[in-house]
Each structure stands twice: as structure tokens, then as C-alpha cells.
């Protein structure tokens, strides 16, 4: 009957329309929306305009916004990063892309000494609202000079916020927050995640969807052990958790989302529940994200709840090799996480 059809139509319209969006498209949407929202926002970097982005993250933006807002730079990281910082000091809101964060080393003085420290040195007179973004960490077969993870390097420095999204929602919500933040943000993407589709809720698809910087997310609740990770390895942790669940081990998986400031409270709350902690990252072990988590847990209220020392799962402490078999064994695999969980639980 027509009344029933009307009722059905209304009911269906109320059902949330989740969509599958790749991380690449989520980043693209975030930039598109922020460029539209605020005319002071602009993007500069190598190949971001006419090439549509080295990894196609900025696809379509130059066509839509033109030369003034989407700027192709020469291969001059130190120069264009400094130019971006100067533009931020003078009132614009630049997004400075590093083709990969490996190349940011050429410009790291501008990120740290010109961007991060200026608000403090000027006693708050001079703000630097800038986002440095680009792929970070290992890719596939790109070897040692193109595979380093810079999370620990940047997260070491006061004055910076360091963000590391995992899925599409993270990518979009956190990039929008980063662009709206009045301070320097280092936004660490992952090349291997660009093409991966994730479900995005209708809420996440809206133009005003932001995720707060500095807050972790519990991706999976569990009671036996806490796994903390960031970026790509959140996925590995969830996969490991699925396997372990079949053996009756329930893992709580925390997605850090932000490296600095780190949401230690969320980790502590989880550890107080599970009594065991494993950190998982792609970066090298020494002086890394996992090392920091260990130190913070020891210094805080959750220490007394640990039934065993914290375990770190990290990349192997070597420059990244090229051959596939070697590369595969240079980074945490799901079996490494499973092994570490069982060792930590002593099962």
C-alpha cells in the first residue's frame, strides 16, 4: 500500500549511509573542504599541483583552486619549508607537503627552529599556524633512504604537535583539525595506507567533521592485554587480535592517533584494566614511541597494575633493506605481535 511504501522510504532515509573511502580520498576531502572554508589555507610542495600529487593525494585541487592556492615548488625543501613558515608568520595557513618525510631532513631546521620554537621565543607574539604533511615510514621496496619513520624525531620537540592517523576517518578528521590548529603540526601519513578503503560514517563525511588532536581511540575493547599502536600497525594489531580471540585472548587495541601530545591517560586506563601492555610501531626501537610509552607508564599510576614488563614490538634496528624477504622481516608482522602478546601474558 502507498502508506507502507511511504513509511518504508522514511525509515530507509533514517538509516546511516556509511561509505567506503580510501585514506587518499579522505585526505583529499579534508584539504578540499578546508581550502574552501578558509581562503588563507593553501598547499605547497613538489608535484602537488599539475601532477595531482606524487601520490595523488591532492588530485583535482589545482584544477579547482588554481595557481594561487596550490603551488608546485622546485626541489628545494629547506627553501620552500622556510617560505611556508614565513607565510604562516605573516597570516596565511599553509599546508607544506614533503614528498616523503625522509626529505624533511633537508628542512628540519625550519620545522624545529623556525616553526616549533617561535611562539615560545616570542612569548606568544608570533604564532605559526602551519601543517607539514606527507608519507612517513616504510613503503614497499623503496630501501633505506626512503623508509625512515620520523615520529620519534618530531615528537621529541616541544612546540610541535605530531599526528599519525590510521584509517580514513582519522585521516580526514585529524587533517582538518591540524589545518584549523593555530600551531605547527607534523602530520605523518603512510603511503601503504593511501589506497586502503575504510568505512566512513555519515557523520565523518560531513564538512565539519573533526577529530581532536591529542586523544587516542579504543578501536577494539578487550580485557586480557592492551595493544597500543599508531598508523599502519593499528591494522596489524586488529588482525592479531582477531587471531588471538580464537584462542580466547581478548586484546584491547588502542589507536594513538596523536603522538604528541600523547594520550597517556587512555593507555593507563586500559592497562589498569588489562594489566598487560604491548606497544607496536614501525619505527626503530631505540628512543622511539614505544620507549616513551614504557617510560610514561612507569612514571604513572598504571605501573602498579602491570603484571609483567611492557613489551615493545618495533621495526628491526637496521637501515631498511631492499630484497622483499629482507624487507618483510625488517618490520613487525602479525605473527610478531601474536608472539609478543603470548610472551607478555606468559602463555
Amino acid at each position, binding site marked *: 500500500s502507498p502508506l507502507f511504501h511511504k513509511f518504508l522510504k522514511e525509515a530507509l532515509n533514517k538509516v546511516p549511509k556509511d561509505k567506503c573511502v580510501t585514506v587518499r580520498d579522505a585526505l583529499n576531502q579534508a584539504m578540499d573542504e578546508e581550502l574552501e572554508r578558509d581562503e588563507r589555507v*593553501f598547499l605547497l610542495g613538489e608535484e602537488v599541483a599539475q601532477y595531482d600529487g606524487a601520490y595523488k593525494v591532492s588530485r583535482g585541487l589545482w584544477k579547482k583552486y588554481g595557481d*594561487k592556492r596550490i*603551488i608546485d*615548488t*622546485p626541489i*628545494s625543501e*629547506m*627553501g*620552500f*619549508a*622556510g*617560505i*611556508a*613558515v*614565513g*607565510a*604562516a*608568520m*605573516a*597570516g*596565511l595557513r599553509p599546508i607544506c607537503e614533503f614528498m616523503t618525510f625522509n626529505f624533511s631532513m633537508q628542512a628540519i*631546521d*625550519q620545522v624545529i*627552529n*623556525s616553526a616549533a620554537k*617561535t*611562539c*615560545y*621565543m*616570542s*612569548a*606568544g*607574539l*608570533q*604564532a*605559526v*599556524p602551519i601543517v607539514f604533511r606527507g608519507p612517513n615510514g616504510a613503503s614497499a621496496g623503496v630501501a633505506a633512504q626512503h623508509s625512515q619513520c620520523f615520529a620519534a624525531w618530531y615528537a621529541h620537540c*616541544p*612546540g610541535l604537535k605530531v599526528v599519525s592517523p590510521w584509517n580514513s576517518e582519522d585521516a580526514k578528521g585529524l587533517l582538518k583539525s591540524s589545518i584549523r590548529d*593555530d*600551531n605547527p603540526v607534523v602530520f605523518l601519513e603512510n603511503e601503504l595506507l593511501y589506497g586502503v578503503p575504510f568505512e566512513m560514517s555519515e557523520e565523518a563525511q560531513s564538512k565539519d567533521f573533526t577529530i581532536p588532536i591529542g586523544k587516542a581511540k579504543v578501536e577494539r575493547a578487550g580485557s586480557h592485554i592492551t595493544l597500543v599502536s599508531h598508523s599502519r600497525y593499528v591494522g596489524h594489531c586488529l588482525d592479531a587480535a582477531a587471531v588471538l580471540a580464537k584462542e580466547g585472548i581478548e586484546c584491547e587495541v588502542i589507536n594513538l592517533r596523536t603522538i604528541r*601530545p600523547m594520550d597517556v591517560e587512555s593507555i593507563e586506563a586500559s592497562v589498569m584494566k588489562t594489566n598487560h601492555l604491548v606497544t607496536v610501531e614501525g619505527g626503530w626501537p631505540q628512543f622511539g614511541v614505544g620507549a616513551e610509552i614504557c617510560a610514561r607508564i612507569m*612514571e*604513572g599510576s598504571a605501573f602498579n597494575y602491570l603484571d609483567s614488563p611492557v613489551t615493545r614490538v618495533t621495526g628491526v634496528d637496521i637501515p631498511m633493506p631492499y630484497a622483499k624477504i629482507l624487507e618483510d622481516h625488517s618490520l613487525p608482522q602479525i605473527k610478531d605481535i601474536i608472539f609478543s602478546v603470548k610472551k607478555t601474558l606468559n602463555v
Partner: protein
Amino acid sequence: VRKLLSIVFKGAAAVVSARTYADFTNEATFEIKKCDTFKLDEGPATQVVMTRDEGLQYYRTMQTMRRMELKADQLYKQKIIRGFCHLYDGQEACAVGIEAAINLSDHLITAYRAHGYTYTRGGTVKKIMAELTGRRGGIAKGKGGSMHMYCKHFYGGNGIVGAQVPLGAGVALACKYQGNSELCVCLYGDGAANQGQIFETYNMAALWKLPVIFICENNGYGMGTSVERAAASTDYFKRGEFIPGVRVDGMDVLCVREASRFAADYCRSGKGPILMELQTYRYHGHSMSDPGVSYRTREEIQEVRSKSDPISMLKDRMLSNNMASVEELKEIDVEVRKEIEDAAQFATTDPEPPLEDLCNHIFHNNPPLEVRGTNPWSKLKSVS
């Protein structure tokens, strides 16, 4: 007769006759050195007009900068100023000449020899000196020190040699982007001129026609290394290769002003960047920890002081053109001395920043956050 009288009574304690301002020449034309140019069909004018008011203002400003730097020298030797202190005395004509040619709405950035520019850009002597002594009344509340002073449209004060040059081009990009006809004056020294990031910046500034005036303050020495020992080409005004350049007598405030006007016109007409080399000299060593005589002779310093001092040159010009009296200039000296003394008094008595301020100003527009102190039980507070 008046000229004779003024020479006779020079240095006299009492003013013999009160002279009204009507007695003085209101403006005069001066011949200044012709600038070498690079990739330019014409250069700055060689005949310039200076009014009495302008002359008095330049004199007062340069004298204030000179006295301020000398007071800083004194305070440093008394260990009331600590850390790095890079003094600008000798180079006053550069800062004053540049500022005379631009507007306060324009932008300026320089390296660490920045006290003079902080002043010409609008900082007060009081706040500059209190920053040097690390007090809460300092221009950066004691957080920055000698090398990190900021005020409106003045972006420091930068400690990393050469890093300010891309920053300056970025400020210029913002000017062009916002379409406000403002420009950025971007200064660096002869030492910094060999930095790679400067060449990266030349390229992008020229490519994108950014309204930036690059200015190399060539004082002959990068720390203790003379220009001949550091640069394969010491024609710094030509180092921009595809950017037109002008080489200017940096000891003559009128030369600097005229060249800066020329450069500002060039920039504002949308032609892109231009490069100025100011040939100048610093009396002090590189910083207060450098006596400045191991790599150059005392005779050289003395010769510049006696033959090319920017303040003396201006004073002679004004007196010989009847634009001011000796007494009048002496009066300015007395006023300047008092201003510096008052500022030094403030800078030595103002309290240090409160410890509560330690962790503040890390971020802008941010909710308060907790900062780890030196040990895990020390939880400090940071507000924007």
C-alpha cells in the same frame, strides 16, 4: 658670518645667541655615491634631498641605536647581560636608511644582529634592554633574549644563519597572496650569503615574483672570516644571478635610503625581487665574546671610525649645510643618553620573569596543558 660664528662657538658651554629655527636651512641637496648595478638599466639617484626634520630624525635614531649598543656592551661586561650579544654599532645607517624608505606596514626580517632593527621597527629601548637582561618587561617577556625579539611586522631576530631568508620570502608570498602592496625586507650577512637555502630562496622568489628586497649587510667579516676567505665571489649584489642587484655605501644613511626607495619601487611595481648589498662595518667583534682584533687590525677599525662613521658623516653634512646647530645636536645627545640611562635602569631593576611563566606560550590559542618538569612529580602548567 653665521657659519663662522657656529665654528667659533662650537663646544662653548653657553649659547651666545638664541637661534630660531628660521635660521636653519630647511632642506638641502646632497651628492651621494653612485651605486654599482647588476642587471639594471638605471640605478638609484645620486642627487638626493634631505630636510632638516629628516636629518634630525635620522641623527636621533642612529645616536639612540649607537648608545643603546654601547650600553649593552657595558652591561654585558658587568655580566648583567649573558649568552650571545651581537652588537650593531657602526652599521646604524643601514637600519635607519632602510626604515626611512619603507612603511611600518611593510615587513622586515633579519638575523641575530637585530637590536637596531627591533628599534627601528617600533620596539622601545626600554623593552629591548629588558629583554637583553632577561626581565619580565622585555619585549619577549625574557623568553627570547638578544636574538629573538619580535614586534609588529618584524619577524626577529633569528639565530640560525640564513634561515631567515626563506622566512622573509614567505612573508613576501603572504603579501602577494593577500594583494596588499606590502613588501618584505629580508636581511642577511656576508657570512650567510654562502648558505644554500638562500639560493633556493632566490630561485623561488624570482620564479614567483615575490615582493622581497634581499639585503646583504656586508660588514667584511663572517664572524672571524673575512669575505675574501669565505667567498669565491665577493660581489654579493651579483650573487642573485637572475635577480637585479645594487651595491650601496652602507655607511651613508642617504645612500641607503635612496637605494632602498629604488628597491621598494621596483618591488611594488610587481617586477619581483631585487638584491641590495650594503657595504658597512661593525666596530665590535662578531659578538661580545669576540674582541674582534685577531682577524683584523685596530688600525682598520680606527680608520673606519674616523673616516666613515655614519653618525659623524650625517652630523658634518647637517652642520656644513646649516641644517642644525652644534648645540641642538648636543641636546639630542643629552636626551638620548637620558633615554638609554632610564632604559638601563629599568632593565637592571625590573624583576625576572615569574617561574609560573616557565612553560607558557608553547602554543597559541590552545587550552591549558600539563608539562613535565625535571622529574615525574613535577607537573607544570602551560597556558597560551
